[in-house]
């Protein structure tokens, strides 16, 4: 850490490479907005960043209680980073519940900003506290900044025409201003955002802008902090144009891209479900992009309408989360049987059953690969980060259209609501997806396959191609209902071979680190950031550890066998009880796979992975 002094500045300005902060408050305190604003501003400043919001499923859990605490963690850096950070350097706690729920995560010696205005006897009672944590030693070992934000905001907005209740709603912007000062962020991006957001209510624009400025000034004037930090722009990122992107947003854009690159209209059939709803909402706004959205009466209707749209030549998509996917299961079997292209998005959440709707888990891998009656293979693609979700959505569209098959696209709650800088693709770089509709009646048979085992896509409305499809077994070629034993064996084999042949169209994933050695850490989905950080740390410590990440979970890419054979063991950290681990043990029985399961509704911390890797290598 270097110390400089800006000309005229009263306090020292310290340059820091890497900062993690967490905003925590009541779910009604606006912590998500605060976090998102800090994120946008840091993006504009040019930091690399990663975010992780953590909020309750309840819209407004009882105010002041521990279950009602909403958090937003942001990691911003002047170097290339991969995770939202293990432990925050600074914590903002808007009330006692937020403080006690989060304080154990704060780094020793970290900064904690506490809103004293919400630490009255009643507030402590709501948080089930007998003593005041500001005074009872809870905060020992931290740099504690106690501010009565309620009072400061009231003072700053004394002249405002707003009611005192509305004035108090500006607290989060005061807090944001304070943190902007601490980390030397410009106010303009948020000032502009407020002006736009509340354009119809100028008094709200003024009040929130004033609160933001007052918070900033307080940092400057009151010398609450020992100094100010600066996190310079990150120069490690590849050159290009960037924006900050959430995982769900990236999926929505990737699907629109899939439609644009294949020249098809996009159809989305969906039913609202956390944490996938954003995709429906986003696409519903794209009415001028040839995007049709259908909010169905239930999950089953959503997938069935999607299959209907696929029959009629749309790029058909349904989006949901685990419990909704369970409901779609029977229809997905039909999609396999009639061999129509579609993408099924599963933004996974913690299960089983309703589970923990706003918490992360990647435990729907079995559901995706195996979860249907009969032999019903469906390819599976999984995004590893918010920005990667764009490429994966496009890839899922490619596989679906190229192979006439339904495709699972897996994301999770951590990717969906997390964000990171996304290097925007140039339009001419995006892959084209070739689609051919059958129009020639000569020799047409609905289940006559080509060299890639694909059947023709013949759209209703095409003269001379009238045909019937359905869930009953079909005769090879004609597609007529057929119960012949040998035919069923043949058709089942075709469907399996077609899906397995997709592996010839995908690249073997690359390995980071030594080409052979003691340990390969293998991941899939949202664990990529933590695994990358952890294995980097291990390699820096001289350990023989490589890492690899799978985007295609079914079929598995070619070449894995040879890679696995170059390491003494393969460690598979998963936010489930070892689902990929079991799949790999059955596919590659000769290798030594180790499972590291974690199911706490939270992502892996890089540090816990480092510990596990070290303990394995010590043995």
């Amino acid at each position, binding site marked *: 850490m270097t110390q400089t002094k800006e000309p005229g500045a009263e306090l020292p300005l310290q340059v820091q490479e890497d900062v993690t902060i967490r905003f925590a408050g009541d779910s009604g305190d606006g912590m998500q907005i605060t976090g998102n604003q800090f994120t946008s501003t840091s*993006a*504009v400043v*040019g930091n690399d960043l990663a975010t992780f919001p953590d909020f309750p499923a309840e819209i407004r859990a009882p105010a002041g209680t521990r279950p009602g605490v909403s958090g937003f963690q942001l990691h911003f850096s002047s170097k290339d980073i991969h995770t939202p950070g293990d432990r925050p350097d600074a914590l903002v706690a808007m009330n006692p519940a937020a403080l006690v729920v989060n304080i154990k995560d704060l780094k020793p010696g970290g900064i904690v900003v506490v809103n004293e205005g919400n630490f009255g006897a009643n507030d402590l009672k709501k948080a089930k506290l007998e003593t005041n944590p500001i005074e009872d030693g809870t905060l020992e070992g931290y740099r504690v900044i106690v501010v009565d934000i309620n009072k400061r905001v009231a003072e700053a907005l004394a002249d405002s025409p707003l009611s005192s209740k509305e004035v108090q709603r500006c607290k989060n912007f005061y807090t944001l201003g304070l943190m902007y000062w601490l980390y030397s962020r410009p106010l303009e991006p948020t000032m502009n955002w407020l002006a736009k957001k509340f354009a119809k209510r100028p008094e709200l624009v003024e009040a929130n802008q004033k609160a933001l400025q007052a918070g900033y000034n307080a940092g400057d004037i009151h010398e609450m902090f020992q100094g100010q930090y600066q996190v310079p722009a*990150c*120069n490690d*990122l*590849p*050159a*290009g*144009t*960037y*924006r*900050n992107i959430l995982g769900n947003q990236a999926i929505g*854009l990737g699907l*629109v*891209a899939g439609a*644009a690159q294949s020249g098809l*209209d996009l*159809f989305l059939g969906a039913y609202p479900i956390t944490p996938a709803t954003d995709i429906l909402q986003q696409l519903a706004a*794209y*009415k*001028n*992009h*040839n995007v*049709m959205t*259908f909010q*169905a*009466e*239930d999950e*089953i*209707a*959503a997938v*069935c*309408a999607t*299959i*209907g*749209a696929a*029959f*009629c*030549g*749309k790029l*058909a998509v349904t989006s949901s989360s685990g419990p909704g996917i369970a409901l779609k299961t029977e*229809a997905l079997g*039909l999609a396999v049987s*009639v061999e129509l292209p579609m993408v099924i998005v599963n933004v996974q959440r913690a299960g089983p059953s309703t589970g923990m709707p706003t918490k992360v888990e990647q435990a729907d891998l079995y559901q995706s690969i195996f979860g249907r009656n009969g032999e019903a293979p469906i390819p599976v693609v999984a995004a590893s980060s918010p920005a990667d979700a764009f490429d994966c959505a496009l890839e899922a569209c490619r596989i679906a259209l190229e192979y006439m098959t339904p495709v699972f696209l897996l994301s999770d709650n951590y990717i969906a609501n997390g964000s990171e800088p996304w*290097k*925007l*693709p140039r339009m001419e770089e995006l892959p084209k997806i070739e689609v051919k509709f059958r129009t020639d009646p000569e020799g047409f048979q609905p289940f006559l396959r080509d060299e890639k085992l694909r059947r023709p896509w013949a*759209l*209703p*409305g*095409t*003269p001379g191609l*009238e*045909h*019937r*499809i*359905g869930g*009953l077994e079909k005769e090879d070629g004609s597609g*007529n209902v057929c119960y012949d034993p040998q035919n069923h064996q043949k058709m089942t084999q075709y469907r399996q071979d077609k899906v397995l042949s997709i592996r010839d169209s995908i690249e073997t994933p690359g390995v980071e680190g030594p080409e052979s050695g003691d340990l390969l850490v293998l991941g899939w989905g949202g664990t990529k950031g933590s695994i990358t950080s952890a294995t980097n740390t291990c390699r820096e410590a001289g350990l023989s550890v490589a890492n690899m990440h799978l985007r295609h979970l079914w079929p598995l890419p070619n070449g894995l066998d040879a890679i696995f054979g170059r390491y003494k063991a393969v460690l598979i950290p998963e936010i489930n009880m070892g689902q990929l681990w079991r799949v790999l043990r059955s596919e590659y029985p000769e290798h030594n796979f180790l499972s590291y399961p974690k199911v706490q509704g939270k992502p892996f911390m890089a540090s816990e992975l480092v510990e596990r890797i070290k303990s394995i290598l010590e043995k």
Partner: protein
Amino acid sequence: MTPEATLTKKDLKSDQEVRWCPGCGDYAILNCVQGVVAKLGIPRENVMFVSGIGCSSRFPYYMNTYGFHTIHGRAPSFASGIKIANPDLSVWIVTGDGDALSIGGNHLIHILRRNFDVNILLFNNEIYGLTKGQYSPTSKRGAVTKASPYGSLDNPFNPISLALGAGATFVARTIDSDQKHMARVLEAAAAHKGTSFVEVYQNCVIFNDGAFDDVADKKVRSDRTVDLVPGEPIVYGKERDKGLRIEGFGVEACAASDASVWNAGIPSPAPAMLFASIERGGELPDPIGIFRSVDAPCYEDDLHAQMAAVTEKKGPGKLEDLIYAGDTWEVK
């Protein structure tokens, strides 16, 4: 509608052998539908039959049009996606009492309220046939079936009341053995813009033979049914000498000369509901014909109009604009 391409019934028969039980009412319905569709003036490639699961749901295999034999109860959902994707198709949903009213009850009410421009043919035989004889959601309370050896405890649905309650814009009932009546009703259903719901009394010769004989048998039909024909007096009987009229909150018998003139087009479903509530096998004749036929916007038309309006206002969207939206920055 002026027919552009005249089809014959034969053009609409597929090359698949029809495999319903000999004597099944489905044969008569298939025959009638082929006759009606042939005369619509719609090219064969623009016709699509969609079905769920059950005896009736094999229907699409026997039509030489596009067809989709889907999964149990969900045909309306598939049809919704199909109509959104291609509003030009003439879509026919073929379903049964179990398919439409039990496992698919949810989808039925929702397609009715959305008013997609499709035709729904509900073959009601008051029994589960394909699974060999269990009580269905239209079986009478007390029905003795394989799954209810001591009598069913379920109260049956009245399909017509259900459709009216869900906001259906066209609701009708016909009888498998009355080809002329069925053809008239199906023609009206096809002409209706919006969801047309047609209940067909269909005899299951194996598991529920004669279920509708009390009203549908040729010998009693003219006295035991009354045909609701929009714009005509509600009269019935061999001699057309008996009538029905609306009185207070009910329907009562009267002389033909005093019969109400049937109006299926008023906004309120209340009069239709009065006729739907007449209990089959009671004193009054069982109403068939057209209970309701009103104009209302269709979902797929509204959706495409909304897309056109937004495109008109904002201009055709470009992927690049979506990707490069919001705050962006350069890394050099």
